[in-house]
């Protein structure tokens, strides 16, 4: 087993709907090694997106512990400002998040989006154009998001993530809005680059084929722990 990048222990999260408490994640535990990939599957509402949000600090767990790159987040208690700052710092520099859509700022060109993300992470913006080129959209660098196709936008989103040189990529249905052919192309690029640069990847998807490309698999519909 590779050195641990992420360890999750006893993670629980529930939502309140009216007077009813709906458990979404219950006592979930798993680990992810450096450079490894994990597929999160499960039907809609099974908690895939919620888990990704918990893993990057966008939402707070009700109970459990997350250890990311040696930093421990006790999430049972109300999060302190210092913890929030730590999560922000991790998201800025170590965690790349890719959503199903709308990953780009509409008022910036593709290149400016990549530069923006790299600068936020404290990385050099010099290689931004290279990243776009590596993702086969170098010629579209000066275009705005509404001037390119959905697949090209997702490639740009991946370029943004890799330009920040993350330790962990959290991808929430990154090909959900794409056609099969484009989705395959984008997925291939994602796996290639993840393998080449050795960052961890957690991929939430409905797609069994896509999930099969990952080294580990966590089905939130059937398993409570791995």
């Amino acid at each position, binding site marked *: 087993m590779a050195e641990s990048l992420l360890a999750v222990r006893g993670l629980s999260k529930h939502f309140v709907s009216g007077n009813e408490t709906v458990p979404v994640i219950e006592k979930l535990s798993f680990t992810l090694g450096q450079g490894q990939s994990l597929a999160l599957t499960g039907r809609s509402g099974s908690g895939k997106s919620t888990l990704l949000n918990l893993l*990057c600090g*966008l*939402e707070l767990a009700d109970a459990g512990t997350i250890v990311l790159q040696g930093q421990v987040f006790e999430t049972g208690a109300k999060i302190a400002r210092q913890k*929030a*700052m730590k999560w*922000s*710092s*991790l*998201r*800025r*520099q170590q*965690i790349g*998040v890719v*959503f*199903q*859509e*709308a*990953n*780009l*700022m*509409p*008022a*910036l060109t593709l290149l*400016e989006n990549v*530069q*923006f*993300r790299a*600068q*936020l*992470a404290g990385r050099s*913006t010099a290689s931004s154009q290279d990243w776009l080129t590596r993702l086969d959209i170098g010629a579209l660098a000066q275009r*705005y*998001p*509404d001037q390119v196709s959905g697949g090209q*936008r997702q490639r740009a989103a991946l370029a943004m993530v890799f330009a920040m040189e993350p330790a962990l990529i959290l991808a929430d249905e990154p090909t959900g*809005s794409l056609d099969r052919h484009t989705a395959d192309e984008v997925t291939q690029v994602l796996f290639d680059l993840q393998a080449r640069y050795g960052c961890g990847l957690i991929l939430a998807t409905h797609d069994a084929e896509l999930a099969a490309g990952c080294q580990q698999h966590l089905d939130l519909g059937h398993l409570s722990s791995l």
Partner: protein
Amino acid sequence: MKGLPSLLASFSLPGALFSHYRRHPLQLLALAVMIVLATMLWTGVNHLTSQARASLNQSEQAVAERQQVVRDDGQMLAVDDFVALRLVGVCVMPWLEVTPETGNRLVGIDPLAAYCFGSRNRPSPALDQPLNGKPFLDMGVATAIKSRDSRLYLLTPDTTQTADLPGGYQLTSFSTSPDTGELGDSFLLNLEALGILVLLITALLLRSVYLLGLVQRRDSFALLHRFGVSPDRVQRWLVFEILALALMCVVPGVGLGRWLAAGLGGGFGQALDGLFDIPLYAGQGQGWAMPVLVMLAVVVIACLGDLLLLRFRERLSLILPKTVYSGLAALLLVAGLAMAWLAPSLPWVFIAVALVFAGAGWLAPYAVARIARWCAGRSTKPLALWRYRELAVLARRLTLPLVALQFALAMVLAVQALVTTFEDTFDRWLGQRLEAAYYIEVPAGADGRQAAEWLTRQQTNTPGLQWHRVMRGQAQVTGTDNANNPQVDVFAVAPVGALIRSWSLLEAADQHWEALDSGSGVMINEQLARRQNLSVGNNLKLRLGNQQRVMPIQGIYPDYGRPVGEILLSAETLPDSFNVRFESFSVTPGKPGIAQMTDALQGIWQVEALSMRDNGTIRELATSVFDQTFALTRAMTLLTLILAAAALLMMGWVFFSTRAWYFRLLVAWGMSQRQVAGQLLRLALLLTGGIAVLALPLGIWLTWVLVHRINPLAFGWTLPMAVYPAFWFELGMLSLAVGLSIAALMRRQLGRPAVAPVSASALTGGER
């Protein structure tokens, strides 16, 4: 049976269309509230303006100069005089002014005696009021009152000639107060112009709120279109929807506006009553139909103008690229500015104002967006770049509420400057005209020269005594381009002392007062200067009595009370042939007090009482009327500003909410919520601050138009143009407060989970 599905469909279509408001009841409420508030505001301003105009018209009629009969020997009139005049067939009406030992002045009248005036020539509209002691009462009651002072006047119609009078009597003018004249008219004209601006602003606000809902319903319309519902049918239902809503909201809005105007107008009425001792405020005279119809039209045009002009717009946008629109807006702006400068008449000035506002309103959001893009182009930091690009998007997307705020700010700025200018001018003008503590009429038949000699003797040993004698008559200006050789009023003054020398002049030569005093020059009022195109240094050719004179113009003075041309000269230079129609003294008695002076003058003129006015009291009362009007004007414009600010706040909040995903994206990318809130704050402040900066030149220009273009064209005189940077600062702070409020509302939203954009336009980044 074929009709049933169609009937069902016709019921299900409105159901589907209106389901938007079932899901977004607050949006419907916002639209309804906006219609009610806009209607209330405009109705309030309009109602107040028309009431103020009616009131001032009545007051002018009440205090307008009329004719009275006086005795040649200067003695006070008595009942015997009334009898004597009526016996020879002269129409006179007794007017008995009584000052009770406690309380205000009362006027006893005999309405029966006034019948000879005829219905078209009533002695006073005040006589139409009930004789209830406020202040009019029946002559019999007035004579029975225990009073400190009383005096009988005999008023006579304008048609009465001196020749009609028996021996021992003559005609002279009669007035109860100074005439505020055109200053009031001018103010009301400007107020009406601003009322139109309020209507425009409310229309913009309505449109912005309505379009916001329409944009959110676009997907539903598209779906209905795919289901086979024709756009025409959808549009018909939309017309029905807005008309129904307008009908429900406009009527209560008009009611609220009238209530607002009545509440605010009460104080105005009291002030008028106090000034003229007559119940003058016109109250609730205006009907409901006109404001309801106007506001219905405004709502329909503001909300559905696009539908009505859809085809035209489509054709226009096919022909013209976007840049041409900015060019067209700039052209409108430049044309409006030029037209305002050169306009020969009022309608052209109003058209020019409309053009400038259209151009400025069209350009302002694009200007903010362009400046933001320029700043973005110079930014080296991607975060700053993003912020400026986002600002450009906001400026374009919030065009209507931003323009409404810009117009409201400009209007408030102009109104503030106008009102303050009017206040200053009015104070100064009253101060000039009422510089002396007392105004004393020389009794008919008495010689003013004897009194002048007595006052000259007193001057040396009475500290604080200031006075001058005024002889009024007429002269003819000759040798002008105007073939009519106009008649002008002559005010011959002597001595030219401190009471006159404190006058502020629009233009003057060196040593002008000395030149006037020595008789080597004249001064003229602004009206005469403008009409005859005269300026300081020109020679004025005059026929004074039977003499032809050429006198250099030493100064031009403002005169807001009278439309006629006027000349001020030294009484020492008057020829003997000059017909003195009226003579008076302006006196500040100094230490001994007025009682000693009146005793002396009564002795000189051999009269029992003097016709005398306490200028201080008149000034105080006159000021109170205008203060009240100015306060009302400020209150109404402030309400407009608050409405515009609230609309921008609402629209800003809603639109920022549509961008919430992207702000949350920043959080996902590692910025803390506090940092994102900081970016939000900077964006909101840049937006509202930017629009305030753009409103500033528009407001200053509007002030200039009001005082330097509309007034001269309407009345022949200008007001001094003043600017008030402290007030600009206050408005700037208010704009920033709106920005702060938007940011504060959005910060709360940042704490909640954001939903990814769902519309096709948003997904493709179409909000760029």
